[in-house]
């Protein structure tokens, strides 16, 4: 009797791989909260400060539309940010599409539905590869452990990084590889467990009848 195997075995394994994938993508996902306009303003503030020592950086409320004062000729933060907005719109949309794709991959894997069971590991592999390609994980946090040669000193450095750098450099480099390798393993398991058409039944049965007919 043929045992009907689940093509997506191991709910725990699937959960771990999905969680690893989501953790790897945590920072890009959270970064979506910074809207294109805010990104443009932040860059404009930095650029304005670096570009010119004589162009004062003025808050928008200082903008003087009368055109009579000297102050009115100086660029405001909003003026400088405006041309950058389009590029940041595109960047933000790209980020959004990537994060949505990751969410679909993780959901498919967690759902473990048989219809999408074979596709989910492929989606996870694609999402992990996309992270590796788009963000180039930093291994500095781990290399720093070798440089400091001291756990307290290493922690002194890492503890002042802030949560986003910690997530990007400590968590993501590990979890993205867990997701990638886990996805590959699930794909192999799913292939191995997939129910095949039993050739023995389809071919052997006519053969058997032929044999019985040929018997004297």
């Amino acid at each position, binding site marked *: 009797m043929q045992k009907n195997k689940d093509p997506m075995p191991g709910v725990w394994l699937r959960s771990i791989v999905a969680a690893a994938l989501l953790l790897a993508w945590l920072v890009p996902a959270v970064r979506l909260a910074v809207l294109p306009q805010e990104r443009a303003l932040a860059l404009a503030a930095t650029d304005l400060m670096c570009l010119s*020592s*004589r162009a004062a950086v003025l808050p928008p409320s200082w903008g003087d539309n009368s055109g009579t004062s000297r102050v009115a000729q100086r660029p405001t933060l909003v003026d400088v940010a405006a041309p950058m907005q389009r590029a940041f719109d595109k960047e933000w949309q790209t980020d959004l599409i990537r994060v949505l794709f990751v969410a679909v991959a993780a959901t498919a894997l967690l759902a473990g539905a048989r219809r999408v069971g074979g596709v989910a590991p492929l989606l996870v592999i694609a999402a992990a590869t996309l992270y590796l390609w788009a963000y180039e994980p930093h291994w500095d946090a781990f290399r720093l452990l070798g*440089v400091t040669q001291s756990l307290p000193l290493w922690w002194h450095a890492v503890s*002042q990084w802030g949560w986003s750098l910690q997530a990007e450099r400590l968590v993501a480099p590990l979890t993205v590889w867990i997701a990638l390798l886990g996805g590959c393993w699930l794909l192999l398991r799913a292939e191995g467990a997939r129910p095949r058409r039993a050739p023995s039944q389809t071919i052997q049965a006519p053969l058997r009848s032929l044999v019985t007919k040929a018997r004297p």
Partner: protein
Amino acid sequence: MPNPRVRALIPLFAAVVAVWSCGGGGDSNDAGQGAPAPAPIPPLSQPPTDISGTAAAQGMDYWGNNSNANGGKGETIDGIPCRVMDETFHIHTHLSVVLNGQLLQIPNALGQVPATATTAGCFYQIHNHDASGRLHIESPVPVSYTLGNFFHIWGQPLSTTNVGGITGMPIVFYVTDNGTTTRYDGDPAAIQLTSHRLITIQIGTQLNAIPNFTWTGT
């Protein structure tokens, strides 16, 4: 009983052990005569790295992007104001911090208070524009600032036992002017930030070479 040949080697082995344990096999030629001589000054690395303009980050990130949380926020520090830049006097000094042979990155945008939607930004007269380690000293009039001033603006400690929070390891300061490196044994906070000076802070293991940087202009 050991072989006679082996027995003959025992005194020789004992002599070698005795000499080694007394330090005769090491490079400290003044064993038993007080403090060891200071290590020789490492040569400058060649060729120098060009960091003209806005250069790439140099070294491994240690302090991250939030290390100036206790630094200047626009208030006057050590008599140094935070204003719109005036480049009438504009020189550069380079700072290298090397931990166990690994160059550490000096974070970008130190000494800068970015503008927000409601407040104007400003620059301290000591600041940087990248993570290359090059420090800008910009002022309407010639000024003489020190490494201690820069660390105050950064908001990190600086002493002979603590550099940016790194403690518990031997720390040596080197100053390179016009290609000549000297070891600095005084108060590190008093090291002057002068044009084209290379300041190297060695923490932990001895350097093989002093990091060497060059840039166009002052």
